[in-house]
């Protein structure tokens, strides 16, 4: 789902960095107040965990696999702020060390996957937990994949309209929303189902160990 470098126009990623800066400050504010011997190692551990979860292959019906995002799991277990900061750090490390994602796309990726994915997960979980906790976790995980997918598809799909030459040739990503929405969303509906299954199994494990929950 990561948007790579070179496909987002400055008209997109510079305002996204401004928005992400505010979001990072908001997320770090709560942490700074309690920055102690627990939070610093925990943030580092959650960052490594988010990275590790990204390496876990989620089975998709048909014999193929996608990779887990793990954002829902992080958000439900450790809160939106820590999940957002940890995921942002993962995206930065991935883009610099492995060329996955990119520095110009970091803010959009972090806002879509780290922030909106976490918020969607926690909102879905809180809204549905009274009905059925397992279903709430599953929907939360599914939403944490599909909503970022939608946002990423929109960010990419808007590029031809935002940045093009006078003759209409695109300057950055070439396809509009009519192409990006189905191309990104349809696979992520299935990846979201895999992520939901995985998150429910881990959630039960975490609850058995009495870890904190959203």
């Amino acid at each position, binding site marked *: 789902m990561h948007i790579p470098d070179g496909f987002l126009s400055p008209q997109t990623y510079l305002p996204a960095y401004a928005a992400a800066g505010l979001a990072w400050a908001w997320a770090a504010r709560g942490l700074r107040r309690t920055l102690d011997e627990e939070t610093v*190692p925990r943030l580092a551990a*959650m960052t490594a965990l988010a990275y*590790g979860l990204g390496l876990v292959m989620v089975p998709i019906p048909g014999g193929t696999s996608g990779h887990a995002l793990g954002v829902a799991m992080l958000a439900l277990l450790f809160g939106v702020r820590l999940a957002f900061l940890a995921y942002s750090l993962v995206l930065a490390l991935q883009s610099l060390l492995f060329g996955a994602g990119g*520095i110009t796309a970091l803010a959009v990726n972090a806002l879509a996957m780290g922030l909106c994915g976490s918020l969607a997960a926690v909102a879905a979980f809180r809204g549905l937990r009274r009905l059925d906790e397992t279903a709430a976790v599953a929907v939360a995980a599914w939403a944490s994949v599909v909503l970022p997918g939608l946002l990423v598809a929109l960010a990419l799909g808007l590029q031809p309209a935002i940045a093009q030459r006078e003759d209409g040739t695109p300057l950055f990503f070439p*396809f509009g929303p009519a192409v990006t929405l189905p191309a990104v969303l349809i696979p992520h509906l299935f990846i979201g189902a895999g992520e939901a299954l995985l998150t429910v199994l881990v959630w039960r494990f975490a609850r058995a160990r009495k870890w904190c929950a959203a």
Partner: protein
Amino acid sequence: MVRGMTATRWLLAYLAAVVAVTFIHEAWLLAALLAAALAAGGAGRWRIARRAVLAGLTFNLAVSLGYAAMSLWQGRFSAQYLLLVNLRVLLLLYLGFWFVARVNLLEAVRFSPTLGFVVTLAAGQVQAFSRLLRDFRLAFASRNAAAPGLHDRARHAAAQAAHLLDKSVCMAAETALAMRSRGAFDDYAGLPSPACGRGVGGEGGPVWRPRRPGVVTAYKKP
């Protein structure tokens, strides 16, 4: 290394270069900049270039082929666009890998002690997790003579994720203890001088103070 350029300055220069590249819409200029970056890349330039090509290959190929098919069908094909976007992506990836190869990332984020701490700890733990997951995969493959089904793969993925969660919580506690033993935390910040103690006042000397109940532990920036 250029004289006077610290790791943080290299980081700022890299970020400025990345932004500047996205404002360039002429393929020949991007090609010239890529050639200049290759020329300045030193002995490892082809290794970095190969890495950059491989990192962007899948996405770029998909976008380029998709664009070619669609624009040819619509009669709006532009070879210049394909050249522009592929050169831009390649240059950005090359700059990123070149920066990481030449500059210590951990030193570059030293302007923020907390960020430096977190990145150092996270990078170390990322390596530990990568190794762990590779072991998991190899063990899973070696224990399945036939291709595992969806249910087995889901249970395996859940076991991996649960183990990662477990390990990360243990690692956080372990790291906290290791940092404490190395003096990274100051339990007594903000407290008044003790009325009694052993070695109080001596720079770096052992200090003994009774822990006050209810005192919030403070994180001492290095």
